[in-house]
């Protein structure tokens, strides 16, 4: 089961759309647990929020074994700097673990028009699938049409697809089948 926890106020329609999309993608039941407060002392000196610390200090959610918990925030996330610089952080997940975090900070504004809302929802679905994919032990995919393609890749279109390609879908289904519950 995938449990969604919002760390900011989101439209109920967006979350319902996300739940349905996640169910279609992984074949696993999805529910919105509710809204929780952002953990304290996770803000860095530069005004961004430490993704690893947010996930570490995130409010616990009642979940069973093999359940995956997805946290959604609207804050700008930061991850440790690498040897070649800091990659843009769209989210963070424990590889093969059970908790993931995504941020809607880098999304295009939701707006009020039907088209802009649709774009926002599609991007929300894509990033959620991407980071939940990491929880199923998936790696990044070279195919720009796959949801596991890196979120900052220059080959990613403005309104990217939010489905897994055949290889990633196969792997995730295998992992879901192997789950104990």
């Amino acid at each position, binding site marked *: 089961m995938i449990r969604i926890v919002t760390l900011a106020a989101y439209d109920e329609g967006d979350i319902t759309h996300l739940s349905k999309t996640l169910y279609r993608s992984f074949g696993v039941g999805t529910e919105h647990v509710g809204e929780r407060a952002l953990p304290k002392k996770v803000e860095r000196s530069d005004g961004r929020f430490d993704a690893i610390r947010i996930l570490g200090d995130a409010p616990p959610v009642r979940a069973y074994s093999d359940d995956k918990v997805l946290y959604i925030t609207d804050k700008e996330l930061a*991850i440790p700097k*690498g040897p*070649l610089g800091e*990659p843009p952080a769209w989210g963070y*997940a424990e*590889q093969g673990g059970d908790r993931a975090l995504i941020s809607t900070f880098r999304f295009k504004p939701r707006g009020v028009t039907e088209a802009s809302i649709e774009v926002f929802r599609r991007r929300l679905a894509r990033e959620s699938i991407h980071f939940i994919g990491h929880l199923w032990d998936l790696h990044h995919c*070279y195919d720009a049409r796959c949801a596991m393609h890196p979120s900052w890749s*220059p*080959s990613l279109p403005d309104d990217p697809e939010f489905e897994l390609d055949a*290889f990633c879908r196969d792997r995730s289904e295998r992992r879901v089948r192997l789950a104990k519950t």
Partner: protein
Amino acid sequence: MVTVGAVRTLGKRERADKQEEASSPVGNIASSADLKPGDRVVYPKQGVYRVTGLEQKDIAGQRLEFVKMTREEDGASVLVPLGKVATIGLRRVATADDIEGVFHYLGANYGDPELDWKVRHRDNVERLIAGGVLGVAEVVKGLHSLSRLRPLPAKERELYDSSRHLLVNEISVALGVPDVIAEDYVDFALMPPAGVKLPLKTPPTPVELKGPPWKRKKPIVADDDDLGLAELGIDMSALESAAEGAAGSEESEEGEAEGAAPAAEDGDAEGEAVPAIAIVKAVERVPTQKVPAPRKAPPPRPKGAAAKALAVKKPAPKVMSRPTTKPPPKSVKPTKGAPTKKPAASRPAPRKKGAKPAKGKKK
């Protein structure tokens, strides 16, 4: 830790293993004495393991000692016999400096990927086993650049994913960051976002592959005649004297061949088989002169009314043009006196309209 071993001559396999050890990259574990409980090592194509200690087991009536290791990512255990530690390619986890070199390599421009799948597959397997962390990075980068040209086949897609997993795992252990962030670093180097310029330095030299014999660089041999027979214990003086004797008889053969060659060139000798030795000798003497290969006689043309009828009914079949436009040698031209031969297979015989083409020509 105690090493098990007795004084004895090395077998062929062990010699090969020793050679492999000698040429293996820095960081390889040469003996089980280098390992102690708590050490982190990389098992080629498997991942990062932690040494947990020694274990003794009775197998087939023998008491054997093993190094026990546990894989960090899933806790899987593996037992390696003490004697095999040096030969399976265990190595230390890469240092932060090595990892930095890997990122500079990943971010650097890469040449065209290998397009021959056999060569690519063999090289990739070799890199994964003996190439260290840079070898794994080379596999990832090579397959990544290939994936930009065309989708990877299923097997290579699997290899790409597993080598990416190994690379990410080792980077995450070496830098002390979670796997997802290590993977972000890798992809940040491979496909940086638009407008980002990476601070790249000179990448490390890629792993040198031994490869198959035909691919290796051959050392320059000073003397072409030296076949290394002396090393095999063959008496060279006896061979030389035998060669001198053979040279005398060869001269006489050459004389015969010289006599035979003009005869073969005569136009009257059509249909006669030219001795192969004579042709070879002629080629040896005049290397620039090309000897045309003997060709079969063209099919006999129909004469009289039959030929006229054929010319009216159907145009001559198209003959594929050949790069060599040399006419066939005089000696093989059919003449009136010579017996007619079967039509050559290379030249299609004229056929009627609507007739199906021959099976062999279908391609």
